């Protein structure tokens, strides 16, 4: 927050200057009020980039901290980005081709004896391949990566490690024919010889069941539609289950010769709304700002939160949009100084929802009034019964008329 203040001189604040002077008092009162009357909401913080300006991560972290302190549950901005991005980015041939170029670059670095760079790049490739479940771009790139690792092991005088990586390369792509332009003769010969040996082993079986049914990709190749069983060479394999409108599931599995391994996977629905960059672009265009704010609602539903709180740097402050908006709040939110954001958001979240058009039997006040009336009538009867004297009479004795 202090950094944000330095970047925003007072004279530039303009209309926000006056409110900043009263902000501490306002914030304290609002926080006190919110702490006494607030209810716990599940919230997602979405810091968005603006043209030429980065997302207000510091403000988002401060807001997350204040919301957590007041009992709300917060999905961190990094998690939001990861969950929204998952499934949106492909892992097909383009990805494989791009990865192959990077592997070639790493090999070139190794040729230049820049082993450290190649090693770092290879670790990154490992994470990327594991994250994509081997991807869907064929087995060539996986074999290339394993052979890169083999080369790294050889240059590290790790003969055993090099042999393991060769085996793994064969397990990942037993049908791959190595490109002579990329792989030296020694590597191709070793690959061919060892492949014959490994193919002689009893095959391993991988049985996969998913909900819903999905395409099963193993080592970058589509094998079947689940539920199904795949025959593979023994060794470690990457697998990926993908189904339309669902986030792909990726996993690794170690298969032993002659054994059958089973995996059951449930697929989550994929985010099909506007991407975060698209929302940022819409918010940056005043004519599409409402559209951008509306795009936050599917995002909140996808993240399974009560509200998505978007933070978009604008003018000299931050535009704060809560979606779905609390009662009596603008959908496009408002621009606030950084130190007003927490108190304003907390205050907005304390507003109870309106039920303006609910039928009489759907209004809580109707039931409260009805219950109160019944209780009052019962109380009246009880009071009457408890306090009334026994029935008495005024008796007059007189002669008969």
């Amino acid at each position, binding site marked *: 927050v202090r950094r944000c203040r330095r970047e925003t001189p007072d004279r530039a604040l303009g209309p926000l200057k006056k409110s900043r002077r009263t902000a501490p008092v306002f914030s304290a009162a609002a926080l006190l009020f919110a702490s006494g009357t607030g209810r716990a909401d599940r919230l997602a913080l979405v810091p968005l980039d603006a043209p030429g300006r980065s997302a207000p991560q510091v403000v988002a972290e401060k807001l997350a901290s204040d919301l957590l302190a007041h009992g709300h549950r917060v999905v961190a901005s990094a998690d939001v980005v990861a969950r929204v991005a998952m499934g949106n980015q492909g892992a097909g041939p383009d990805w494989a081709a791009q990865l192959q170029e990077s592997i070639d670059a790493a090999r070139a670095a190794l040729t230049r004896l820049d082993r450290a760079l190649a090693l770092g790049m290879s670790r990154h490739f490992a994470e990327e391949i594991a994250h994509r479940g081997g991807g869907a771009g064929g087995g060539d790139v996986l074999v290339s990566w394993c052979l890169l690792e083999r080369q790294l092991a050889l240059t590290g005088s790790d003969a055993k490690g090099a042999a393991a990586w060769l085996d793994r390369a064969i397990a990942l792509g037993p049908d791959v024919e190595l490109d002579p332009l990329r792989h030296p003769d020694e590597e191709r010969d070793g690959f061919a010889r060892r492949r014959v040996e490994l193919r002689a082993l009893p095959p391993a079986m991988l049985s996969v069941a998913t909900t819903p049914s999905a395409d099963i990709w193993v080592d970058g190749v589509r094998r079947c539609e689940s539920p199904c069983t795949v025959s593979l060479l023994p060794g470690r394999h990457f697998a990926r289950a993908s189904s339309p409108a669902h986030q792909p599931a990726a996993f690794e599995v170690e298969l032993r010769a002659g054994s059958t391994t089973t995996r059951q996977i449930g697929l989550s629905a994929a985010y099909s709304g506007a991407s975060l960059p698209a929302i940022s672009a819409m918010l940056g265009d005043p004519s599409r700002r409402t559209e951008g704010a509306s795009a936050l609602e599917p995002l909140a539903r996808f993240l399974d939160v009560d509200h998505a709180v978007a933070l978009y740097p604008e003018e000299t402050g931050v535009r704060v949009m809560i979606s779905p908006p609390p009662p009596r709040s603008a959908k496009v939110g408002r621009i606030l100084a950084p130190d007003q954001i927490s108190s304003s958001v907390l205050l907005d979240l304390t507003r109870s929802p309106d039920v303006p058009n609910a039928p009489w039997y759907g209004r809580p006040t109707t039931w409260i009034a009805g219950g109160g009336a019944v209780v009052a009538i019962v*109380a009246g009867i009880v*009071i009457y019964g408890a306090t009334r004297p*026994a029935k*008495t*009479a*005024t*008796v007059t*004795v007189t*002669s*008969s008329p």
Partner: protein
Amino acid sequence: MRVSPTTMSARCLGFAIFLAACSARETEVMIYVDEPSPDASPCIGVVGFEITMTGSSESWTSGPRMNALPVLDGSSCRIARPFSASGVPLDALLTVTVLGYDSAHAARISGTAQVESLSGSPVHITLAAIVGAKPAVLVIDRAPLLGGMSLTDVTRMVVATQTRPQTLLDVSVSDVGAYFSAVDPGAFGVDAVPDTLLTVDFTFVQGGSVPRVRLTATQNGAYWQTQAK
């Protein structure tokens, strides 16, 4: 117009309390005392009535209800003033007793009713002669016999036969109370009137006295009327 739940509840509670308050008023109940048969004339000689109502935990007494004159006619056996008591339980057992007394505060007539509920039909009590009441009634107009003294100053009155002196009546006023002096002529129950010549002696407060008075008794139907000689 929207009414808040609190207002609605308060109104209902107030209405219930209002109903409770309004429903607390008492019921008016009449108990009628019927005259005895005029032929039997057990009421002759009665100068006043007393009414007692006894409930399970409380009783109500009227005190003397004096007539203007003694009952000398069977058809005029009536209580001079009604007696009212409030707060009588409506649905509890109630015993109502009516007693008629002569001038010596001797009960001559009575009636009793036990009422289980006053909510039902009107209650009637029939008066009847008390068994053992003195059968003859002697009516004495005492004011002319007092020589100018007041009847309220009399403390004792003794009536006796003249020829063979026999006391027919000896009334100590302190035991009789208002019954002796409130109604004149007085009516006194006696066992019999064996002689028509009678004497009356009065004793007054502070020892005063008047000469013995001689009376002649004459039977007039169901009672004996006396007259100074």
